[in-house]
């Protein structure tokens, strides 16, 4: 399947998933674009743990920036944008091998899937931590609130 079909499908999938999560309408196009950006990085790097990590890092950083710009919670953007990266195919294959009794392959595919998920989680956390730590506005505002 050619890459542009995958990218369009990724955008539509991220957008409709956002609708399913009751995301505010205004944020959906942005979410979809961030999802496409992340998935194209993932396609370029190949489905390795590093690919998962770097693509999610890009998504996390873009989402945090958009959250600042649009004054909304970053979670709103991350939820929809990250979903194309989640390794559903690995999960299915793991289950298939378990059912077939092919435990060797089940373990290896399962471990790769788990590592991918860990990579995604780590990247999202890192971007969120970076942005909370260096959030100039909050540091300025804090003394006024006291």
């Amino acid at each position, binding site marked *: 399947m050619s890459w542009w079909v995958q990218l369009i499908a990724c955008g539509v999938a991220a957008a409709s998933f956002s609708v*399913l999560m009751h995301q505010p309408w205004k944020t959906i196009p942005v979410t979809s674009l961030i999802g496409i950006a992340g998935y194209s990085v993932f396609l370029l790097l190949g489905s390795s743990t590093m690919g998962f990590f770097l693509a999610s890092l890009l998504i996390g950083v873009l989402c945090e920036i958009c959250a600042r710009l649009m004054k909304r919670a970053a979670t709103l953007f991350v939820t929809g944008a990250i979903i194309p990266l989640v390794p559903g195919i690995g999960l299915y294959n793991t289950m298939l091998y378990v059912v077939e009794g092919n435990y060797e392959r089940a373990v290896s595919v399962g471990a790769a899937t788990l590592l991918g998920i860990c990579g995604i989680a780590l990247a999202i*956390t890192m971007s969120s931590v970076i942005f909370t730590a260096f959030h100039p506005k909050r540091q300025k505002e804090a003394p006024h609130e006291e």
Partner: protein
Amino acid sequence: MDSITTTLDAVCLASQLILESGGETYRAEETVERMCQGLGVKHVDVLALPTGLMLTLTLDAEDNTISRIVRVHTRSIDLNRVDKCNDISRRVASGSMSAEEALRALKEIKGPKKEKRLLLIAASALSAASFTMMLGGVWVDFFVSFFCGALVQLVLPPLSHLRVPPLISSMIAGALTTLMALFGTLALPGVTIEPVISGAIMPLLPGLAVTNAMRDTIRGDLVSGGARIMEAILSVMMLAAGIGLMLSIWGGVRA
């Protein structure tokens, strides 16, 4: 000046709504703290968990202290609600909204949702189908996956109405998706099962739960983080169990 109970009601309702709608626990805590600052509460201590919320307010110089525990029973995902609560808490914190106004606005958010069922079914179907395309499906797979997504969204809300535990309904969802996909391979030639099932289960995966869990854990909310990770792992396992169950039943029937 707002009365004590109005303040407490507004603060509790805001963070309860956030917890019920898939917000992070630290967001629920931060909301309470920020709102209390805006409402002139002297001191506040709050502990939010995925399953409940405890808070103690000290209101004035005479040290009148008041506490409340709020239980959170249902956890679904509604990011629009989180967004609205966030907005209200921001306005209360900046002092442009009183506790009474906030309470009224929050009650409106809590009130019965205008269920857009058809929209949700369409969204579920379309996202399942596009995930299938994204994972290398062809047009026939797109149609099968479309029906899988629609079927899941058709079945899940009535199940939660019947108070079927979320873990069980995620197993049912996995099994239904697989069954539908397997029927698809029988009915239509050229359907490959792999992209159909893996695409159709994508919307069912607990992506938000995992990211929230990581955020909570990193911020030091170990209890909520651990609980959420547990929730996410269990729900993936139940989903996988549903798929596996149906695959092995199907294999047994055909053999």
